[in-house]
């Protein structure tokens, strides 16, 4: 039975919509009215969600929001995946925000660090994607969500095209709790290719004067892959992919893993691994995966987001990529993260810093970035029950006790021992454990991937199998053994290293059958972007900054 009390939220929403009044024609509003409408639909104390991850941004709405002043908007509890735009920073500078809960602040990492120092960044917590989406259903349910879509029809149905990403994860909790969903769209059309969000869940729509921002995030130019990265890729292929028969996997964004993708049709083929490894992928449509797909390695690819320039290719290869009935690519960030958590044999990615216990982070005092999605995949899902070959093999190596699961996900960190500019990757203590950062984060050190979750570290020196280590001291020795000539590596003891090598816990390239002198870019399926276009039969349209023809 409906009582007045149980309908409070609904009534409140109705009041807000009423305040919009004649500023809208039905659901549709003109761009110049947006700041005033935002002022009328957002109330002090609201949980406000801004859509924007590391690729797609509701940038028009964010920019309009940033034109308001504290007198218009205050005490906002901001929830959002990625603090990416200058407009986001503006909201903090103007003092509108009473709390923020977010995942990642890549390009604005420096600005966020400055806000923290100025005590203008009241952070609740830094999350992983699915952790934050989950809280949208529990204690961080948005009252107002500002979202982005490429197209709307005249009823307010939305088409999300390749970059569905996190839109459903924001709209559902908002729409089903009497919140307001306000969408910016690139264009309003009579008929949509397909309906991704029904009009029923959308309250306001504006045709933005410029298309939403899309970042080409996963485009790695093969020309920038080095011989050293090829060496590491060969070592990883032999020492991990081949050894564990990794069938389902996620690759991080980086040149190391791009090198692996480009070695599959050449080196991988020579090793006879086709059909044995790398069949099921949870990755965005990586351009560097094109040669492997064209060579018949890949059964399926599910993605958390799209990639600029891959639209025609993914549509043409709907046998591999998830596509809608209209034939175009479909992504879903929340479901992709879930798949990466439970359903893959291996996560492999890079990091800026790894400490002596195997913890990694990208945060420092002058750059507060955060997590994004990597930790959802780079962790042990203890809720997993289904076995695979790789999972069982890795589990057996970890010597499970009577109270632990029989399997393990492979969580691999693949790093060069030095970053650009001779900055060592391996450190005794993470920059992220700086007291000022811990204080701002309520005592939590922002660790990307915990050492306990990591099974292997691959460097140009070799592989350290952390899962096979039997003590903290042993794990530290294994990390030192592959830390090269960093200060951490220089502390290794020859005898310890030789002992670990004898037991297979540390493996040098030659121990997994790789001759370093063989490692050469010439092994890559293609060495430049143009080659990727050729592999795609002209279906890949790289962003202009990558085109030199």
């Amino acid at each position: 039975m409906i009582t007045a009390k149980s309908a409070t939220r609904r009534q409140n929403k109705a009041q807000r919509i009423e305040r919009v009044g004649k500023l809208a024609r039905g659901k549709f509003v003109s761009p110049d009215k947006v700041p005033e409408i935002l002022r009328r639909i957002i109330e002090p104390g609201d949980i406000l969600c801004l859509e924007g991850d590391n690729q797609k941004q509701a940038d028009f709405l964010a920019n309009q929001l940033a034109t308001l002043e504290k007198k218009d908007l205050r005490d906002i509890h901001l929830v959002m995946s990625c603090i990416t735009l200058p407009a986001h920073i503006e909201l903090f500078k103007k003092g509108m925000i009473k709390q923020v809960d977010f995942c990642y602040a890549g390009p604005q990492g420096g600005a966020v660090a400055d806000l923290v120092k100025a005590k203008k960044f009241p952070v609740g917590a830094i999350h992983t994607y699915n952790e934050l989406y989950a809280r949208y259903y529990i204690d961080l349910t948005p009252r107002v969500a500002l979202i982005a879509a490429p197209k709307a029809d005249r009823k307010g149905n939305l088409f999300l095209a390749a970059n569905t990403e996190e839109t459903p994860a924001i709209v559902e909790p908002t729409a089903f709790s009497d919140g307001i969903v306000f969408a910016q769209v690139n264009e309003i059309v009579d008929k949509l290719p397909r309906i991704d969000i029904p009009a029923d869940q959308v309250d306001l729509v504006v045709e933005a004067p410029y298309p939403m921002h899309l970042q080409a995030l996963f485009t790695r130019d093969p020309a920038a892959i080095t011989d050293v990265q090829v060496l590491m890729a060969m070592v990883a292929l032999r020492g991990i992919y081949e050894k564990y028969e990794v069938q389902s996997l996620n690759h991080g964004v980086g040149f190391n893993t791009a090198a692996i993708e480009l070695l599959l049709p050449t080196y991988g083929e020579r090793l006879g691994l086709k059909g044995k490894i790398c069949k099921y992928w949870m990755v965005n449509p990586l351009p560097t995966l094109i040669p492997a797909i064209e060579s018949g390695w890949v059964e399926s690819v599910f993605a958390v987001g799209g990639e600029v320039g891959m639209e025609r290719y993914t549509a043409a290869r709907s046998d591999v990529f998830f596509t809608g009935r209209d034939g175009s690519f479909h992504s879903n960030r929340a479901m992709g993260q879930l798949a990466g958590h439970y359903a893959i044999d291996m996560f492999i990615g890079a990091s800026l810093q790894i400490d002596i216990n195997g913890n990694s982070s990208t945060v420092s005092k002058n750059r507060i970035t955060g997590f994004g999605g990597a930790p959802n995949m780079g962790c042990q899902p203890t809720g997993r029950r289904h076995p695979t070959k790789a999972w069982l093999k890795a589990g057996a190596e970890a010597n499970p006790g009577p109270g632990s699961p029989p399997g393990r996900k492979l969580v691999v960190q693949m790093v060069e021992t030095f970053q650009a500019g001779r900055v060592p990757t391996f450190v005794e203590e993470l920059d992220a454990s700086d007291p000022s950062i811990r204080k701002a984060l309520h005592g939590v050190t922002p660790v990307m991937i915990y050492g306990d979750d990591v099974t292997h570290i691959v460097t140009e020196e070799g592989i350290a199998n952390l899962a096979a280590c039997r003590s903290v001291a042993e794990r530290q020795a294994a990390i030192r053994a592959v830390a090269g000539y960093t200060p951490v590596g220089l502390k290794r003891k020859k005898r310890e290293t030789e002992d670990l090598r004898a037991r297979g816990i540390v493996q040098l390239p030659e121990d997994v059958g790789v001759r370093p002198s063989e490692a050469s870019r010439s092994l890559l399926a293609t060495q430049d972007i143009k080659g990727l276009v050729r592999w795609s039969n002209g279906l890949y349209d790289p962003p202009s900054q990558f085109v030199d023809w």
Partner: protein
Amino acid sequence: MEKFTKAFPSKPLPTKTAKPWALAGVVGSGNLEVLLESGGRPKDAMECHVETSIPGYKASWLAALADFAHHYPAGGTKVTINDQGAPPVLVTLRLRQAYDHLTKGDK
């Protein structure tokens, strides 16, 4: 620029090498060249001369060179390095390439 010279104990180079010298790498940003020469020196050590544009990494250099001298029979050789900020991994890689050229010839 920082310069240093040091000899590291190493097992003698195989008596027959393919050529008297070998050069690997190029001097360029983040890269280095290694000139490896054989002949006319004590057989039990690898003599190293390093000139680097980035000072302050002597410990890493010495460790990398010592490891190489330990792993490869390079006694009696002279190593001369012109460096423009290469990471240690390239030091090892170029040494190995120069060594292969010296002992097995180009190819």
